[in-house]
């Protein structure tokens, strides 16, 4: 049969530290001095502490439904630490690790998950988007922001984080295709935690890897060990540099695992074996980096105790501040809807405020 091979592709996987924290080869420059990795470690600990507190608050009725990132801390910390301050983060609902690194405060996160819109009015990264609850619906926004940066000829890039389930959605695909056509300064990072609520990775797509979805839109795609914060940071940094340099978008699939329930409203035991979860505890990211730091004499039991203590103090203070924050006035419901409230809504606003006493 007269056929020619017209195109070829391959997907690579990168990892620097094995699950026990042993280096598999020379580490990238930023990791040359183990002490420089301590901030990454502290950030993962802070995230884990925040998650634990948030789950506890939800259980005791002080927070709404919450999505823990337990086991995925390296994805967010590795990626955010690879970003420049003026890059833009467009996160999903499980990306508190990245948000905290970017300067979103724990108080703001508590407020948001506690049902207060002010939690998305970040004092810190003003261009960063609020988290996207509708899965993958923010990837087009990320493409739009990236287009804005490109049109202004700024050397800035956009990082958009999504889950494995999000890769099944058309908006993810359409936006990635735009990014390919326009060579946008965009990096889409898939935090593949192997589950989308009860759907295991294999039920989400017949694709052998999620990284290869890049092939469909003609951009580079690769896999990285999402529990190896060094690998995540190195690969995301490279992709962001590429983007800022005008060489276009890329897709990175970080392989990690959701050690928690999907959210506090979920009971994973209905669909997932505990055995599988226990297995994955062996490769979780915090212990992995700790083991490496300890092996390099850059970390100690003391340091660990101090780190945990200071993280706990910081989160507890934030929790207090959150609980002490009075709710917004009812009028807030109307006051951010438009730049200027249309005349037709002033009576509704008055009614709502008036009903304050009687109602609720």
């Amino acid at each position, binding site marked *: 049969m007269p056929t020619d091979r017209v195109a070829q592709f391959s997907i690579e996987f990168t990892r620097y530290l094995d699950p026990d924290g042993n280096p598999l080869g020379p580490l990238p420059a930023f990791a040359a001095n183990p002490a420089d990795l301590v901030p990454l470690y502290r950030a993962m600990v802070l995230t884990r502490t925040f998650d634990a507190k948030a789950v506890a608050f939800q259980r005791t009725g002080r927070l709404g439904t919450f999505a823990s990132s337990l086991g995925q801390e390296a994805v967010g910390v590795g990626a955010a630490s690879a970003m420049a301050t003026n890059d833009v983060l467009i996160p999903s609902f499980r990306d508190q690790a990245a948000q905290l690194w970017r300067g979103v405060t724990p108080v703001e996160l508590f407020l948001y998950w506690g049902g207060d819109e002010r939690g998305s009015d970040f004092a810190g990264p003003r261009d960063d988007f609020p988290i996207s609850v509708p899965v993958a619906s923010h990837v087009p926004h990320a493409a739009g922001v990236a287009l804005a940066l490109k049109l202004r000829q700024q050397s800035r890039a956009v990082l958009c984080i999504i889950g494995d389930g999000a890769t099944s959605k058309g908006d993810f695909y359409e936006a990635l295709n735009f990014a390919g056509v326009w060579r946008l300064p965009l990096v889409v990072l898939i935090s593949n935690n192997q589950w989308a609520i009860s759907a295991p990775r294999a039920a989400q797509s017949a694709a052998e890897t999620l990284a290869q979805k890049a092939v469909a839109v003609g951009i580079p795609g690769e896999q990285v060990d999402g529990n190896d914060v060094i690998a995540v940071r190195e690969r995301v940094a490279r992709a962001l540099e590429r983007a800022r340099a005008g060489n276009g978008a890329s897709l990175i699939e970080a392989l990690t695992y959701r050690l928690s329930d999907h959210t506090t409203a979920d009971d994973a035991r209905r*669909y997932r074996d505990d055995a599988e979860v226990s297995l994955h505890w062996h490769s979780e990211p915090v212990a992995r980096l700790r083991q490496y730091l300890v092996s390099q004499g850059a970390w100690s039991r003391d340091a660990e105790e101090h780190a945990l203590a200071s993280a706990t103090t910081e989160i507890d203070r934030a929790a207090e501040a959150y609980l002490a924050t009075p709710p917004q006035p009812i009028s807030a419901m109307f006051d951010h809807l438009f730049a200027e409230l249309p005349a037709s809504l002033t009576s*509704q606003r008055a009614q709502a405020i008036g009903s304050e006493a009687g109602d609720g």
Partner: protein
Amino acid sequence: MADATLVEAINLALARAMQDDPRVLILGADVGKDGGVFRATDGLLARFGPERVLDTPLAEVAIAGVSIGLAAQGFRPVAEIQFMGFAYATIDQLLNHAARLRTRTRGRLTCPMVLRTPCGAGIRAPEHHSESGEACFTNIPGLRIVIPSSPQRAYGLLLAAIRDPDPVVFLEPTRLYRAFREPLADDGKALPLDRCFTLREGGDVTLVGWSAVMREMLAAAERLAAEGIEAEVIDVATLVPLDAETILASVAKTGRCVICHEAPLTGGFGAEIAAQLAGPGLLSLLAPVERVTGYDTIVPLARLEQHYLPSVDRILAAVRRTLRHG
């Protein structure tokens, strides 16, 4: 005859429909082992197997579109969209295809599908999980739009929706999923899809609405009764096709009408009922028609949510305004 919550009634109706008709299939994200994020499909996978309860990838447009293909082939797919906030993406498929496949082919191909999705606020849910978006679907010819407000009506109307030879959008108020129980005979009896339900009779004022806020309407009627004011309470239940006759007949009797829904006021479906009263019903009206609804704002997050929802007090205030006339 056991008592059931609304979500249990949905589950019973689904099981009954699947048992009665091998063409009935369920598909959606997490409808299998997980039994649906609200457990509406709990146990159905175990009972009917993976060929009739299909977990899908996370993609609402395809869930709707695949259902259309299944329906055209003679199956009776019941698709679940996890929250109304994620159902808007399916409007394209519903409007351009499901609602008109019969029309486009002069009846050669049809689309007997049901798209189920939870709606409404009041459960302190995350962002995008509290909308009442029914009005985005009520001006689409070829679709039926149904919203039950009790376990019994949920059961009977869902059976009717599944048996209907044309597409039905079936909205389920999350606030009522587990709010109360009702005796429910799992007798496979469907309820009519073209009829309002009069929940309480009265001659002084007509309260008409749908979805979760029916509870506030009934509570308001109680309070009024204590004052000797008899309110007639009507659950529209099937918004499209609208049973205007029942509403007009009631207002012909009472002369006063308060329309209540959780969705925003402007362009909400309550306007259609008010329009029926301004038209054919005008001569019965003794007082301006009142609408008690959600405000024309985004449903606030949990901390302010309850201030958005129509309350018993707002309903009572509206009723009192209507009673001041004539």
